[in-house]
């Protein structure tokens, strides 16, 4: 049976993917809402916006998101990484509930439950599709210490 052998470091990167995207978006949204309306007639004001604290923080978080997202895609399947990313919405909703004391409707609680279930499902399976050719050398390269039980 293929199992996923993610290291703590890889879990950390998946966590960064999940949390940095919604946090970055929230920072951008907060920063842009505080700006006076920007029109295309004055594009220079957009450049000024980049240097305001919330927007700069948002951009930094989104750069961090993209870097960790690319890293995750280099060792895990797209269909494994995407539900993990969606879990970020749950984290943000829970932060909003318990930290900012925002009300969460019944509908949203249902959404939180479904996403959590979905992520739980996918997390139980393998993180990477096993490909016969690359398989042997990869497992040899990655985990020389762990004896793998070959079923094929």
């Amino acid at each position, binding site marked *: 049976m293929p199992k996923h052998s993610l290291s703590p470091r890889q879990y950390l990167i998946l966590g960064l993917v999940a949390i940095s995207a919604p946090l970055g978006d929230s920072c951008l949204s907060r920063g842009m809402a505080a700006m006076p309306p920007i029109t295309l007639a004055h594009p220079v004001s*957009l450049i000024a916006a980049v240097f305001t604290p919330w927007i700069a923080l948002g951009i930094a978080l989104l750069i961090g998101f993209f870097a960790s997202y690319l890293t995750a*895609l280099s060792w895990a399947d797209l*269909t494994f990484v*995407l*539900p993990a990313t969606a879990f970020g919405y749950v984290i943000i909703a829970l932060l909003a509930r318990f930290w900012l004391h925002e009300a969460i409707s019944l509908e949203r609680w249902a*959404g939180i439950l479904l996403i959590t279930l*979905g992520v739980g*499902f996918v997390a139980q399976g393998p993180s990477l599709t096993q490909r016969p050719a690359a398989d042997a050398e990869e497992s040899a390269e990655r985990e020389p210490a762990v004896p793998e039980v070959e079923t094929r």
Partner: protein
Amino acid sequence: MTISLPALPLPSTINPWVAAAMIAAVVLTSTTGEVLTAAAMKSIGDLDVIRAHSGLKGAIRAVLTSPLFFAGVFFLALAFFSLLFALNHLNLSLVGPASASLTLVTNAVAGKIFLKENVDRRRWASAVLVCVGVYLLAH
């Protein structure tokens, strides 16, 4: 990056087919972008290993010399602009959740067909659950 939402509470003047086409454009371009990016990263190999061998600069160079990566980023940029375009005509409460949740399912389909990922029953179930969940949460 500013998103000016229409002042109307509900864009009732918009043909539902046109609205569906706008959302479809966002979903298709972002799926294409995600699949190309994922293919690029798979062809580059484990970034953690590359970084251990040739440092952060080596890892960045490996990503930035991949044509597939730029094709992916091109489509992700296209997805971003089609999202802005759709937001100009439709409400955020429709476009946001619809595109975010549909993309999960189209990515599962595209991942199976183009990336040959092993999308088993578990992953299908997860894609559908998260899809409905994101819709409910973002709505």
